[in-house]
């Protein structure tokens, strides 16, 4: 029992580390990309600096990356992990492909959240003499905040799922535990506990995310 506990505990810590690090980095990549997708888009949908060609190219790149099967993208990105973290095995190494795989997803979610901002409010901000940067930082992001929080919640949940898959190719964490012990060593108890912990994590993130988003809406 003690051994099972410490196995699951260590794997949970690894999963959390992977998920939160990759959420952080995928936001760093995806947030500017998502905002760029929105502001370069059509004027009626928050496009404050419409650039149709750039918008089209970015949109296609994001779509290609999003439709790539995650597990293959991870394998393709291992060399990059070796360059950035020095290894292609283990929890740290998985953060690189996880972040990059989630970034296009984050970009689309941010884009759709920001597009929901009332065009009239953006027009008012322009009429008052806001610069493009001021509109992005002081209007678009704050106005879209509840939707952004929902989007980030969804990203974290997706990354918990992705991180379990990353376990299959030596990433560590709960997915790795479930496959190596539960599947390969015939330990259904380990498999069961790992899956339960993943479910609990997902539920926890969802509840907390909903709470934050609802509280933001209530203050408006």
């Amino acid at each position: 029992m003690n051994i099972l506990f410490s196995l699951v505990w260590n794997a949970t810590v690894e999963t959390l580390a992977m998920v939160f690090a990759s959420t952080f980095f995928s936001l760093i990549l995806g947030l500017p990309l998502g905002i760029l997708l929105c502001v370069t888009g059509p004027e009626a949908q928050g496009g404050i600096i419409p650039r149709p060609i750039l918008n089209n190219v970015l949109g296609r790149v994001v779509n290609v990356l999003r439709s790539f099967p995650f597990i293959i993208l991870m394998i393709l990105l291992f060399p990059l992990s070796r360059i950035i973290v020095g290894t292609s095995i283990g929890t740290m190494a998985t953060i690189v492909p996880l972040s990059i795989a989630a970034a296009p997803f984050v970009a689309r979610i941010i884009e759709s959240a920001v597009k929901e901002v009332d065009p009239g409010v953006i027009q008012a901000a322009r009429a008052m003499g806001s610069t493009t940067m001021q509109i992005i930082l002081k209007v678009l992001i704050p106005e879209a905040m509840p939707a952004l929080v929902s989007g980030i919640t969804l990203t974290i949940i997706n990354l918990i799922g992705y991180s379990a898959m990353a376990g299959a190719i030596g990433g560590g964490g709960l997915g790795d535990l479930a496959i190596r012990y539960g599947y390969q060593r015939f330990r259904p108890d380990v498999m069961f506990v790992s899956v339960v912990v993943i479910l609990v994590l997902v539920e926890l993130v969802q509840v907390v995310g909903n709470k934050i988003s609802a509280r933001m809406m209530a203050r408006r």
Partner: protein
Amino acid sequence: MSISLKHLHRAYGSLHAVHDISLDIPSNTVYGIIGRSGAGKSTLVRLVSLLERPDSGEIYYQDKRVDNLAKDDLIAQRRRIGMIFQNFNLFSSRNAAQNIAYPLEITGLAPEAVTRRVDELLDLVGLTGRGKAPISTLSGGQKQRVAIARALANDPDILFCDEATSALDPQTTRSILTLIGDLQKSMHLSVVMITHQMEVVRDACEYVAVLENGSVVEEGKVVDVFAKPSCATTKDFLANLAPLVEQEDAKKQDMIRWSAEGGRYTLRFRGEKTGEPVLSRIQKTYDVEFNIRAGGVQHVGTEDVGTLICDIIGEPDEVDKAVAAMQLSGILVEEEGLNA
């Protein structure tokens, strides 16, 4: 600050939203621009407020040409104009005070100075102490007051009102128009009011331009236009003036109808004429009788403008003489189907 538009054009594809508009908007007054939806009002206000550039033509604020400003100058110029909207367009992520603070923040004003100015502005629009209120808790009228405070934060010379009262009930409309009128006088603003409500023009504007299919079809002082409308669109607007909008002065009454069917003649007269017994004099001089169907006197700005709808009964040449005599004494006579 006066605004002058010279031959403005703006088309979207084959639609000429604004077609060769030239206007001189005097400073320190309230100027109304009225038109039905699709007449080009929204496009015109977007051009004049520098949100959009015209395809051709020029816009001057005082003597300064502003339609072709480079990016930085454009942003600086926009900070010196105020604008309010039909749907208020307030930031839902900010409370009332933070909304008013926005235009001050973006100019880089120090936070203490921002707070001080915001308090002044809240007082100015009658929302003292409501600064911390979230926008969703405010009524329509209060939201428009916040928007007015926000528009005036940087002490602009010009205030654009884009259908600013169209989403408000008549009573709130009146209080907002009064507020704008008071602020216009105390801050010496040039107010440009875009609207589709003739009541707004009557109650708040000194000048009016009537827009139709992207062009100005009539323009002038509101009293003149009310007393002597020259085009069909204007007459339509006047005919549909909502009788339910009560004016606060008992003297300012709306049209009263005695008969369901309209008369053949519409008589319009203004100022001192509203007190003169012109009709009975004419009735005595010529062999005609007046059958009055509807009539009333409206208070426009500081003057009275009267309207009578009536039939004139008599021999055709006597009627013509009577009409000529009325026109001679300053009454505008329109005969249905001839002058409309």
